[in-house]
């Protein structure tokens, strides 16, 4: 697959590229791959917490898109479709893993698996790097412990810059339900991450937006 990089190609919309891929132009598909591989891998990494699994699932998403190109009809935004595939694959993988872990834990003697089920013991860490890792782990644990739908809503809202209409379509719920879902999710995170929130400096209003698009004040 040869790819030509020029402004005209880069400016083509996702739908245009997908329609060209449907017509048999693999270079257009390659551009979609380059446009969305990073957001997709990041999203899936935050969903499954494992970089190798996130890469594998992201590749699977692109393969599914490639396979479905012949039937593609631009009825919804391309990203809605892309992230819906990603969400379904991630949820399936999480459920499979959980099921396998449950089977292992049921088979194994209780003493052996108990320590691994606990969070790493919090010790006084002087090393700044370790402290940061701890903070990051705490944030990840808090986001991961959200109910599935709330977690996906937060990941798409906070990290993928998606608007409410699009997230609602990915989650197949109404916009009003999504707003309430997001409020509950952030409220839980605010409580769970209270020690970090209390110590955080108040950012400038422009930097507070969930998607980095600050409300003009």
């Amino acid at each position: 697959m040869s790819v030509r990089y020029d402004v005209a190609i880069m400016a083509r919309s996702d739908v245009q590229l997908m329609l060209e891929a449907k017509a048999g132009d693999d270079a257009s598909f390659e551009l979609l791959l380059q446009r969305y591989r990073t957001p997709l891998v990041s999203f899936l990494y935050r969903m499954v917490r494992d970089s190798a699994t996130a890469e594998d699932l992201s590749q699977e998403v692109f393969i599914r898109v490639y396979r479905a190109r012949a039937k593609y009809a631009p009825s919804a935004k391309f990203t809605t479709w892309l992230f819906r595939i990603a969400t379904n694959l991630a949820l399936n993988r999480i459920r499979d893993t959980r099921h396998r872990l449950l089977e292992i834990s049921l088979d194994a003697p209780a003493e052996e698996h108990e320590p691994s089920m606990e969070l790493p013991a919090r010790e006084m860490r002087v090393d700044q790097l370790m402290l940061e890792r701890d903070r990051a782990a705490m944030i990840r644990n808090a986001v991961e412990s959200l109910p599935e739908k709330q977690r996906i809503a937060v990941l798409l809202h906070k990290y993928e810059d998606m608007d409410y209409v699009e997230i609602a379509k990915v989650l197949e719920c109404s916009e009003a339900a999504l707003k309430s879902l997001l409020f509950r999710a952030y409220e839980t995170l605010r409580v769970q991450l209270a020690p970090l929130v209390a110590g955080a400096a108040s950012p400038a209003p422009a930097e507070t937006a969930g998607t980095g698009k600050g409300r003009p004040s």
Partner: protein
Amino acid sequence: MNYKTNCERISSELIPYLDGRANAAEQSAVESHAAVCPACRERIEEFRKLFGVLNEMPAIEPSGAFDARVRERISAEPPRSLFDWLVPAPRLAFALAILLALSVWMGKFTTAENSVATAQSEQDFHVIKDLGVLENYDVLKGFDALSELPVATQEPDQTQQDQQQKDGQI
């Protein structure tokens, strides 16, 4: 009471307010409530800080082999068969096949009904064809076979006369 209701009412607008997606009306509703509600003011401030904290969650970049791996998997995909080109939508094709089968099946019944209808219309045709003869009184009058028929046609007239007589008595 009213205070609490207002807090609940604006809660679903807090996130759009903080991410800059609330419209002017929602924005001023949150701001005017926050101006009189210290608890919500504090909550808004904490949400702002929370969004900053959440930025610390690490992201990852795809590995250098990512694109190559996707290309490799794509090239391993079986090429689209002739069947895929001819039948781009298997469900639609299946529905059409069922429709075709149904129409053939229904067609059988229609033909049977038609044959009955044809037989009927053939009889009608013969009657119509003979109508000229049947309506010709002179022909019928001289037709010996008709005189051999029982005079059943008289009976209804007789009954009618009896009925008329009864009606007259009443």
